[in-house]
């Protein structure tokens, strides 16, 4: 064989082009989708639903940011504003961020990464999706029937006895959505436990699956507590049973304990999947084996575990005792350590790598910056006396948007771009995708960084109107909101365009080694045409070499790996 800069494919690897029949076209019609048992179709339906919910939640955000651009009640009165921030929060938390990566990406990718045909319980999976739809309907009913003005946190006694809005409908919707989350968690845990292929022990599986697993543990253990709490809220509100309202003999701070016992682990449900995606992207687009595999894997479990013991850091000013606050603060710092470990391991993965700046990597790098700020600003809030100042101010609002949007949403888009060729069989256009990500990055920072300043200045949150001295930074923040909107619209356009006029996606455009890249794009209905290949090390990227003719990575045998390593180079 002549010495070339590319490697010729061997006969043992699957062919490059997508087969005629795949999971998208093997059956058609609404019923074949809405009652499918195919995890891939369920993932797509979740993706569409989550995008729709994101648009709705985003609309409320733009409305409230537009109102806040100037002091005074400009386009809405206080009652409407209070509804805007409540609905924005409730929709984003329950209908978008919590389901996002597990439901839309996890559902699609997880079984294929395990070389399996589907999840352990496909019917339960469909049921999870239907529960999501029913929960979403309850939120729509909430909107149509008078809205909600309690804040997404539903604090009592305001929510049980001081508002006429659709509280019961909304908490029932959240209750139902909770079961969607629980069942997905059960499904993923069992699938990972029982359906790993030969040779894939826990410590051989991709880090994406470690993230899904840790998330599933939290979903199963924490969500029921929220369910019961919301049920108690509904009972007090409708039947006057005194649990939280002192006028009925209850304790309002008790509600906070119950609520945050779930809602703090919930934020780890939000971020662990994001971190899981980042682990995959950074390795593949640095063309290097992930660094510190064991530490990253264990850190996911550590975060999930410690995350259950810190809920009181939301309550330092609630009237909670000094002793309790002290314990919660101390444990809160313990959760920060594993997150720091991950960041250092990702950076070391990039060291001496070959950095390919395609869209998934641009989102992942954005994640490092934004989650970096978000995580670091959490330190001010875990520290007890600075939290006394910052609690319920805009500093908190900025912090959680940096971690939930800059963290989870950025990782979500990174994952969408990363797995887009596999899911759709289409390639998106790279340059517009990168520009969209960068515009979003600029917009996001202009939108939220000034909110740290507002927090320092003492601006409280959930304020429909504010003193004139806060106006400048609010105006800047609103401008950022519109820049972010532009960026996200560009993302949407870029993705939709790829469906209509994108190029055909090869089997492995990125040169990754996890099992989903060992099957065509898009995959057949049963995920693999024949038996799935042997799993091996998910981060052994030197099994793949770049082939300029097909503009994709091709699988090479061991002897050729050596040749490719010396002479070849990867996609630029």
């Amino acid at each position: 064989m002549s010495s070339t800069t590319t490697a010729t494919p061997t006969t043992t690897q699957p062919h490059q082009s997508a087969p005629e029949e795949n999971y998208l076209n093997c059956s058609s019609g609404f019923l074949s989708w809405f009652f499918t048992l195919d995890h891939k179709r369920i993932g797509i339906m979740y993706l569409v639903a989550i995008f729709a919910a994101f648009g709705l939640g985003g609309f409320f955000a733009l409305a409230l940011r537009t109102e806040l651009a100037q002091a005074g009640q400009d386009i809405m009165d206080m009652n409407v504003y209070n509804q805007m921030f409540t609905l924005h929060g409730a929709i984003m938390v329950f209908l978008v961020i919590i389901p996002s990566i597990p439901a839309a990406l996890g559902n699609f990718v997880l079984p294929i990464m395990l070389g399996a045909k589907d999840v352990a319980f496909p019917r339960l999976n469909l049921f999870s999706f239907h529960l999501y739809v029913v929960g979403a309907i309850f939120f729509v009913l909430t909107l149509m029937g008078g809205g909600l003005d309690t804040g997404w946190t539903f604090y009592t006694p305001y929510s049980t006895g001081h508002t006429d809005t659709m509280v019961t409908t909304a908490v029932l919707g959240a209750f139902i959505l909770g079961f969607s989350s629980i069942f997905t968690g059960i499904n993923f845990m069992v699938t990972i436990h029982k359906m790993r292929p030969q040779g894939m022990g826990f410590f051989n599986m991709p880090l994406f699956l470690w993230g899904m697993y840790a998330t599933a543990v939290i979903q199963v253990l924490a969500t029921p507590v929220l369910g019961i709490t919301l049920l108690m809220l509904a009972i007090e509100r409708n039947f006057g049973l005194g649990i939280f309202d002192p006028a009925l003999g209850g304790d309002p701070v008790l509600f906070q304990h119950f609520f945050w016992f779930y809602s703090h682990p919930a934020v780890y449900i939000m971020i662990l999947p994001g971190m899981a995606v980042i682990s995959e992207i950074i390795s593949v687009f640095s063309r290097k084996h992930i660094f510190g595999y064991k530490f990253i894997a264990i850190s996911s479990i550590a975060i999930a575990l410690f995350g259950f013991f810190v809920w009181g850091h939301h309550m330092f000013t609630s009237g909670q005792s000094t002793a309790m606050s002290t314990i919660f603060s101390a444990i809160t710092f313990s959760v920060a350590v594993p997150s720091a470990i991950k960041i250092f391991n990702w950076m070391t993965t990039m060291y001496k790598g070959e950095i390919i700046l395609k869209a998934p990597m641009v989102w992942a790098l954005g994640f490092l910056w934004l989650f970096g700020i978000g995580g670091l600003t959490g330190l001010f809030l875990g520290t007890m006396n600075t939290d006394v100042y910052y609690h319920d101010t805009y500093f908190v609002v900025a912090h959680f948007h940096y971690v939930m949007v800059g963290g989870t949403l950025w990782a979500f888009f990174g994952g969408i771009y990363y797995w887009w060729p596999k899911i759709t069989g289409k390639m998106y256009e790279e340059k517009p995708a990168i520009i969209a990500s960068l515009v979003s990055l600029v917009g996001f920072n202009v939108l939220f960084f000034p909110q740290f300043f507002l927090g320092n200045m003492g601006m409280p949150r959930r304020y429909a109107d504010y003193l004139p001295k806060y106006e400048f930074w609010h105006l800047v923040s609103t401008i950022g909101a519109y820049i972010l909107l532009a960026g996200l619209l560009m993302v949407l356009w870029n993705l939709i365009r790829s469906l209509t006029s994108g190029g055909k996606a090869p089997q492995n455009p990125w040169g990754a080694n996890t099992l989903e890249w060992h099957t065509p794009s898009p995959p057949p209905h049963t995920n693999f045409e024949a038996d799935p290949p042997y799993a091996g090390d998910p981060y052994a990227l030197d099994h793949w070499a770049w082939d300029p003719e097909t503009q994709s990575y091709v699988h090479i045998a061991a002897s050729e790996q050596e040749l490719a390593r010396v002479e070849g180079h990867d996609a630029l």
Partner: protein
Amino acid sequence: MLTHITAALASTLATVQDASQELTPGPHLFPDQASTTAAETDNVYLFIFWLCALAFVIIVAGTGYFVWKYRAREGHKAEKTATHDNVLEVTWTVIPTLLFGVMFWVGMKGYVGLKQAPADAYPIQVTAQKWNWKFTYPNGAESPELHVPVGRPVKLTMTSIDVLHSLFVPAFRVKQDVVPGRYTTLWFDAKDGVLKEGQDMVEYDLFCTEYCGEQHSAMITKVFVHEDESFAAWAEETANFIQNEPAYVAGQKQFLISGCNACHAVTDEAGTGPGLLQLSQLIKGGGSVDVTIGGAQQSVPADDNYLRESILNASAAIKVGYTNQMPLFQGQLSEEQLGVLMIYIKSLADENYRAESTLSQLEGGGEVEGTETDTDQGE
């Protein structure tokens, strides 16, 4: 048991009181360090800030450097390095852990200091409601704004009569939720340095910072820090304002103290509650009001009894077109307070109630000069 341990710990870690009485501006857009504990909070902030700035630079500059130096290009390949290094892992685990330990410690120390009011603190009661604050002073004075003497600890004992609120004074760096059904406390010491040469009073913002419904963002008032003499004079005058002022003027003050202005304009303007000018006119002219009693609509005479019941037990008869939002003032108002309130409301339309003195009234009117009906609904 745990509380006792923490309290013992606290007494051995005496709060770092700000010995310098100078007024220092806060760093990074924080307000002035107007209390004796503000500097400690700000110093912990700065400590964390510089550590975070360092970490951020390491992360962003480090990543940026790697992206540039190892960017994919002709002739550049990834190098196979080690895939794990336990020494590295332990190092970057231990160092952050130690730094976090220090952060936790200084934060805890500061917090304990914020929780432990000095024994000789000047006590003020706080009652929060939707959507105003009422401060009650040792001599019985009440006011919708917080007045405090400078240079001594002040302790607020707080409760709410309806939903959760939270009292926040940024300049003092203090915050505490105000909970219905129990008391919570908060203390601060406004430094002597806040009063400049010749100044006998200075003011700071006080916010409600726990969402409490429609006018949460209007539940803002001020903290007035006084020299001792100025504070004493204010407290005396305020405690006796009902005896010392013409009834309708006293009633206007009581209107603000009881927070009526949060929902009721004294014009025809409708807010959460009806504007009171129309009711005043109906009372004067002997008209009637359409209300809902027990679900059924009725027309009732607009007289003193209706006005009294509307204040003490509003839920008994709700004016048509409004919802049952008004707190019950039964037991919250003395007869004198109720009396001057009613006189004030009647005075809106009826000049007969607006007299400064009996003689001037008999001789034909005479409002107190310079008195304005304060219809400010808050910012």
